């Protein structure tokens, strides 16, 4: 008898779970799903690149030089006779890594900052969010250029600098979420149980604010990747011997008159990835119904 009831309850819980509903909705959105699958494929390729790339990263063939796509080199070769597909695969590793790592930095700072501000409230909140407002007004694009000039073009710094820019919106979203959640009974219950604030934030607040965080994260990755490509294009980001899609596009643009494939294929790789991330982000927003739950 009791087990029946428990089964009923678990069934009901599963049926109406937010994540299950969201998945059902997302599955209907073909563009978002296609975007997600492409991203998974690109990520797997990026992880396996050292083993599956058709040529060695530094393999040159100066006799061949720049050649259009062919059976040996599917996407052609650059002026040093390097295989473009190999270059794009290795460049993708860097571009995706910058996207994921810098977004994680932003996520970590933003969620912690917003959660503390929203949970503690009062003067602490006012000071913390005023700081965010001030930083919002700072022209960060210019600052990143400045940072890269002053401290040299260092990939670790690039992660930190981009992450430090992108956390602001995350903090605002997290704060408004926490402020809403704080009013709810289960948080009051947790407080009256005597749980320390750090546990409440970690166990109760962050998991319940996960929807907006996921959506915003998915939409932050493309803007981070764009920023990296932008800096690399100007020559202020990734430096040779490393490469990234932005750097490949920059080289391609120099020789596009004679060898247009050197511009088109890296450009395609970047655009398709950004497309996928944006469609997935939009799809997740609809699926998790983020906008309505905010109202």
């Amino acid at each position: 008898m009791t087990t029946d009831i428990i089964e009923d309850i678990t069934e009901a819980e599963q049926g109406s779970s937010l994540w299950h509903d969201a998945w059902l909705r997302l599955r209907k959105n073909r563009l978002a799903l296609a975007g997600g699958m492409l991203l998974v494929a690109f990520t797997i390729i990026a992880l396996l690149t050292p083993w599956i790339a058709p040529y060695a990263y530094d393999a040159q063939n100066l006799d061949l030089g720049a050649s259009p796509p062919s059976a040996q080199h599917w996407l052609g070769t650059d002026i040093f006779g390097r295989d473009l597909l190999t270059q794009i695969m290795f460049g993708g590793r860097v571009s995706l890594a910058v996207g994921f790592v810098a977004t994680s930095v932003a996520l970590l700072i933003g969620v912690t900052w917003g959660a503390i501000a929203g949970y503690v409230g009062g003067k602490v909140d006012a000071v913390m969010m005023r700081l965010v407002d001030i930083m919002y007004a700072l022209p960060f694009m210019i600052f990143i250029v400045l940072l890269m000039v002053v401290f040299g073009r260092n990939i670790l710094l690039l992660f930190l600098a981009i992450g430090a820019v992108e956390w602001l919106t995350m903090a605002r979203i997290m704060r408004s979420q926490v402020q809403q959640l704080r009013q709810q009974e289960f948080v009051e219950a947790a407080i009256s149980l005597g749980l320390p604030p750090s546990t409440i934030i970690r166990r109760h607040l962050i998991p319940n604010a996960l929807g907006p965080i996921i959506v915003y994260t998915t939409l932050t990755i493309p803007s981070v990747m764009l920023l990296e490509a932008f800096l690399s294009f100007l020559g202020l980001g990734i430096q040779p011997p490393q490469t990234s899609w932005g750097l490949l596009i920059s080289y391609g643009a120099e020789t596009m008159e004679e060898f247009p494939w050197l511009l088109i294929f890296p450009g395609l790789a970047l655009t398709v990835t950004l497309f996928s991330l944006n469609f997935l982000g939009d799809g997740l927003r609809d699926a998790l119904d983020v906008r309505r739950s905010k109202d």
Partner: protein
Amino acid sequence: MWRFVGIRLLQAIPVILAVITVTFFLVRVAPGGPFSAEKAVLPEVKAALEAQYRLDLPLFQQYTAYLGDLAQGEFGPSFKYPGRSVNELIGAGLPVTAELGFYALLVAVIIGGFAGVIAALKPNTAQDYIPMTAAMIGICMPSFLLGPLLVLVFGIYLDWLPVSGWGDIPGDKILPAITLGSGYAAYIARLSRAGMLEVMSQDYIRTARAKGLPEWEVVVKHGLRGGLIPVVAFLGPAFAGLLAGSFVVETIFQIPGLGRFYVQAAFNRDYTMILGTTVFLSTLIVLFNLLSDILAAWMNPRLRAQFGEN
């Protein structure tokens, strides 16, 4: 309303001061002095140079002296080109960049706004999907890719438009303006679509329709004002983005504007030039943000009421 403007102005001051301070000290802790690349110079010459750039003073005095210069609108001399001052370079580059930015913004607002409003009038039809898909492409296509592609197609293959320069050959301003503006056109299209969708479902629109107004008048007179508030609020951040975008576009099209100077200064490690330009551009951006906030607040009657208009 004036209170709102006053509060915003007061908020802008610490931001600008923070920019100046952070930039100044960042540039000062940068490795490598301004003259380290040159061959060994006589001690007297070095001392004279250091005195000229005030490098002989303690750091904090350098900072206060710099603030004093700035207050008089003096951005200081260039490290790399001793004869030139940052003011001269800004004076030469700003009009060009301002013109480019203006055309780009025009492209963005006209195309983006039009596409967004059209899409919002018939949501979830082809009239909505086609412009919005185009907008998605615009967002995902960075200017440093779009620029070379446009040059390749319209400049080289079709040979319709010049591929570089500014004001030398008729038509050489078209490609840079489109390159810089299209990304913002895409954002504005999405913003104005969302804004219009929300406004067009409001009661006052139904009232306007019930009055028997023709549909275009409902849209233009009653819809646009509310629906475009998000677009106006976006113009401030867009301006900052346009400036950064001008770095790329001016480099691609070899336009002698502020953006190209900035990138060159970055490459040359011309620290005073970077410092001066950063301070100048940042102030400009902060002021523009302020302007767009005020404009958006003025367009929004609820906000106006909140700050006790009349």
